[in-house]
Each structure stands twice: as C-alpha cells, then as structure tokens.
C-alpha cells in the first residue's frame, strides 16, 4: 500500500471477485458440451435451471446466515415439512393462496424461533438448527405417517412445473429472490450491517448496530426461502412428501462456500452463491450426460467441492 498525499477521491475500481468460479463454471460447461452436445439443448438447460433454483434458493438463505456468522442446518428438513404442510392445508380445503401464505408464515416463525435461540439465549446456531433438522423431519412424518399427501389442485402444479417464456417457473422465483438478496447485501443498511456483524459482532454491537435484529432477519429469511422451496418441490412432485430434502442443507452450504462465502462470517456474495449453485447443478447433470457410473457420482461431487474451495482460497491468497 502506497500512501500518496492528496490523492483524489476515487471509489475503488470494481473488483470482480467471483471471476475464478465463473471461469470454472464456464470451463465446466464447455467441457461437458464438447463431450456431449446435448448439454446445451433447451430441454437440458431447463433441467439444469430448475435444479439451480432448488439449490440456489436454499443457498441464498444460507449465504446471508453465514455472512452474519451463523449456519442453518434445518433447511432440508424444513423443505419436507413445509411441502407436507402446504399439501395438508390444500387437502383440507384451504385455498391455494392462503395455504401458501400460511406455510410461509409458519416457516418464517420457525426462522424466528432459530433467531430467538441464537440471539437471546446464545444457543449456537449449529445446535438450534440441528434440533430443527431432526424435529421438523419428525413432524413431517407425524403428519403424513409417511404417506405422500396427493390429490392436490391442478393449479398448484404450475409453481413447480410451469414455464414462462420457456423458463421454468421455479427458476424465475429463484431469480427474483437472488435479485432481492443481492440488493439487500449490496445496497441496504441492513446488508452492510450484516457484514459487520459477521466480521466482528462485538464491534457492531458497540457501534450501535441492532445486532440481534440483523441476525434474526437472516434466520427468518433462510427459513422463509426453505418454505418457498418446500412449496416448489411439493408442486413439482404434485404431493406433500415427508421424505424429501435430506442433505439439502449441506448442498446449500457447499454452494455458498464454493461461491466464496467464508464460513467464519463477514464474507460472501449472492452472485458467488448463484454461480456456486450453478456449478453444483451442472456437475450433477454432467455426470449423467457423461455416462459416469452412478456409484462414482458422490466421489466426484466430494472432490469437486474440495477442489473448488481449495483453488478459490489459494488464488485469493496469491493476489
């Protein structure tokens, strides 16, 4: 760092920190396309796009929480629970819109519950959300006794199965929330405070930031997004299913971290997370297109996660 006197006021040039992984995503896509050109057929891109939406929605919530220094293990189970609930409500004659709103309220309340434990009772987020991971899945089973709730109204299926201008509807929902989250993190006071909370919570508190509010917000937002995802999946499956969502939390966290979010808090971008979720989905898709034996998929996924993060860290250190 050089110190020059009287240097003009200039806001730093835009540093595109997601470049590494964006390149990775592009290289990956090109590679798969070369190996199997079907990758870039519209139908396949729709498949990938829908998959990105599912991972991505959860990963956005996770990103905000992790930036604020927390973690949310509950999202996978919440997907199951909210999917079951929305189906249950509609099955019991509640109108679709109201059922959806109800479910989103419930999932937000669960987020509030997490936020309450984390901020007011000082329970580590890992634990309170681990509790929900276990309990929410349990509740979903209690409600359904394991059986899917089927016979939902036709119009409900559009959410998960429909298209607008050829783009899967879930992808549009995802884009909307990604933009919202991008906006929040980048341009609002809340967003700035979130980074401060994750960077040094004590400093943020002593500076007068309403630390609890900021953190509670992230938990509510994450659970809310899990609710959205649960509804999308229920619609996509045309049913409420207690068995879905297992391990989604880890995929969501992995997507966020691949996208450059630091698990120690204070660092991460929505753009990175979107790219991270895209990488995960492209790989899942590519493994099949490249006809790799399904037994190897997990091995490849595991190695990809490690490699992506290691390279990212290594390159960041170098600069």
């Amino acid at each position, binding site marked *: 760092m050089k110190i020059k006197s009287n240097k003009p006021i200039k806001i730093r040039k835009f540093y595109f920190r997601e470049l590494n992984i964006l390149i990775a995503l592009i290289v990956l896509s090109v590679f798969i396309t070369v190996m199997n050109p*079907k990758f870039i057929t519209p*139908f396949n891109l729709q*498949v990938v796009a829908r998959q990105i939406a599912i991972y991505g929605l959860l990963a956005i919530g996770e990103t905000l929480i992790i930036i604020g220094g927390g973690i949310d293990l509950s999202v996978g189970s919440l997907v199951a629970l909210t999917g079951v609930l929305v189906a249950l409500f509609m099955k019991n004659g509640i109108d679709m819109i109201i059922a959806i709103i109800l479910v989103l309220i419930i999932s937000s309340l669960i987020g509030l519950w997490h936020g309450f434990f984390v901020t007011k009772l000082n329970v580590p987020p890992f634990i309170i959300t681990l509790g929900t991971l276990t309990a929410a899945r349990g509740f979903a*089973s209690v409600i359904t006794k394991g059986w899917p709730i089927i016979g939902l109204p036709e119009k409900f*299926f559009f959410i998960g199965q429909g298209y607008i201008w050829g783009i899967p509807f879930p992808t549009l929902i995802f884009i909307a929330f990604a933009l919202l989250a991008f906006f929040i993190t980048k341009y609002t006071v809340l967003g700035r405070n979130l980074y401060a909370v994750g960077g040094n919570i004590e400093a943020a508190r002593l500076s007068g930031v309403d630390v609890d509010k900021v953190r509670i917000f992230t938990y509510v937002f994450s659970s809310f997004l899990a609710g959205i995802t649960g509804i999308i999946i229920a619609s996509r499956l045309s049913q409420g299913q207690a068995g879905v969502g297992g391990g989604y939390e880890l995929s969501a966290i992995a997507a966020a971290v691949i996208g450059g979010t630091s698990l120690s808090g204070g660092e991460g971008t929505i753009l990175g997370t979107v790219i991270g979720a895209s990488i995960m989905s492209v790989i899942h898709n590519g493994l099949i297109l490249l006809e790799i034996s*399904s037994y190897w998929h997990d091995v490849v996924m595991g190695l990809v996660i490690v490699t992506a993060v290691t390279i990212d860290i290594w390159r960041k250190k170098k600069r």
Partner: protein
Amino acid sequence: KEIHVAVIGKSVHPYWAEVELGVKKAAQDLGVKATFFVPQKEDIPAQIAQMESFIAMGVDGIAIAPSDPTAIAPTIEKAMAKGIPVITLDTDAPQSKRLIYIGTDNYSAGKIAGMVMNDLLGIKGGKVAIGTGSLTAMNSLERMRGFMDGIASNKRIVVVTKPALCDFEDTGRAVTLAEQALLTYPDLRGFFGVYAFNGPAAAKAVKSAKKVGQVIIVCFDTTPEHMQLIKEGVIAATVGQRPYMMGYKSVEVLTKMAQKGVAATLKELPANRIIDTGVDVVAADKYIKTIKSVQALTVEQYRKKLQELGIPVQGW
C-alpha cells in the same frame, strides 16, 4: 446407431445391485447399450432430475422404478412426448402414461409376507414387530401396508411397533433396534423385516438374545446372507421379488420397442400392461410345511428354480 436404454433404480442397495446384474446380462445378450443408474439414497426430486437428464441425453428408452409414482408422472409424460418410451419396474405408476410395468408390486409382496407370517404364527397369533429403513419411502410403506392386510385375518396377531422401527437405512442401527424390540417385548413372536438388511439384522438380534425359534422372522430379499440364515433356521421365510428378472426384462422390452416400435411390442405383451415377474417365498426346512397360503421353496429348490430361469446364483 447403437440402441441405448437407461434403467433407473431407487438407491444403492443389494436389491438394485441385483437389478443391475440383470440389466447388464440383457444388454450383453441383446447387444445393446444399457445404462443402469441409482441415486445414492432415495430422493424423489433427485431421481426426477436424473431422469430428466436422461431424457435430455436422448436415450432410446427408460425404465424407472419411481421412488414415488405420483411425482414421476409428469416426467414420464415429458419423456413420452419426446418420443422416448418409458416403462416402470419394481414400483408401478399406474396413473402415469408409462407403457408397461415389470415386477411384482410391493403391496402384493408385502401381503404374501403377511400371509406367511400368519401361517407361521398359527391360530394363537402373538406380538409382531416391524423393522424398516424408511417411514416415508413408497416401497417400505407399500410392503408394510400389504403385510398388515396379509395378517389381518388373524386378530390375535398384534403389531406392537407403531408403526415400525425405523433405522434410516443404517444397518447398524437396525440391529440395535431389533435388540431393543426383543427386550421391550419379551413375548415377541414375530419380526417382519421390510428392507433387505432388516431380516439379517433381526436374525443377529435374535441370535444374541438366544431366542432362535422363539421369534419368527419373515423378511424380504434373497441375498446370500439371507440364504445362509435360512439354512441356519434363524430366518423363517423370506420373500424374493426377483430383481434380476426385472432388470433383464426391462432391457429386453425397451430394446424390442426401439427395434420394432412401441405398438408392435405392446401387442406381444399382456393386455393389462403388467408383466408380473412373480415372487419366491423361500423358507427354512422346518417351517416349509407350515406355510400353506403360498408355495414356499426350500433353499435348494430355490437354487434349482433360479438355475432353470437362467438367473445366476451368486455367493451361496
């Protein structure tokens, strides 16, 4: 152009490994390319996404064992719309546009297991525990439902677990749960194992509690381990669904559809669009006479039968 068909199973599991053997053999026999695919664990959205990827790939036919029959329907429709014939195996999706179903449905198989249990427990009935790997997966639910219907005729058979001890497909936990069931219900007379590992797990618990013969184990699948335990008389009877056949037949049918066309193929197949691959009930020698409601085989008879059907006998 080489014919390429895909067979999609439910999870990494010996049952599906056996299906895979059938798939591989058929592909070899027929000179086609067959991709066998299973998700790591049962996961409905993942399975659907994977099937979509196969559709995108443009294979000549897909056989799928839907983790959930309702959920898969739109995707099957999508494939059919793209001119890819889709059939189901192991689990049917009757509401969908699938062309044909190959297998014995889990409900029927479960019901047979129930009837076997009923025979073995006799009039005096008794307490029965159920162990399963999932409380949400369709195959588990259907097998249990079938089982309950199978024992329904004898009111003195009481299922004490509510509804079943679930180990989340963890074999280690399955053993512990079985042990605890024996302890909690000292007068337990029967144990129904839903997933492949549940029977051997119960057998292990029964052995260590020294209750062999006292607790009747009826379970699913015919892995070498099952056969060994039946020979020992620890497992009373097991229901085999012939996964090998399902795999083999699926490839066979899909290949025929690709070669001769869908309509022509369907004409040769049963009108109800179901190819029942049948079940085998294999029982320990000392119980074989007691089983009346179905035709039970001894281990040796079963071996012979498999050889007749051309199914390789592996490991036992």
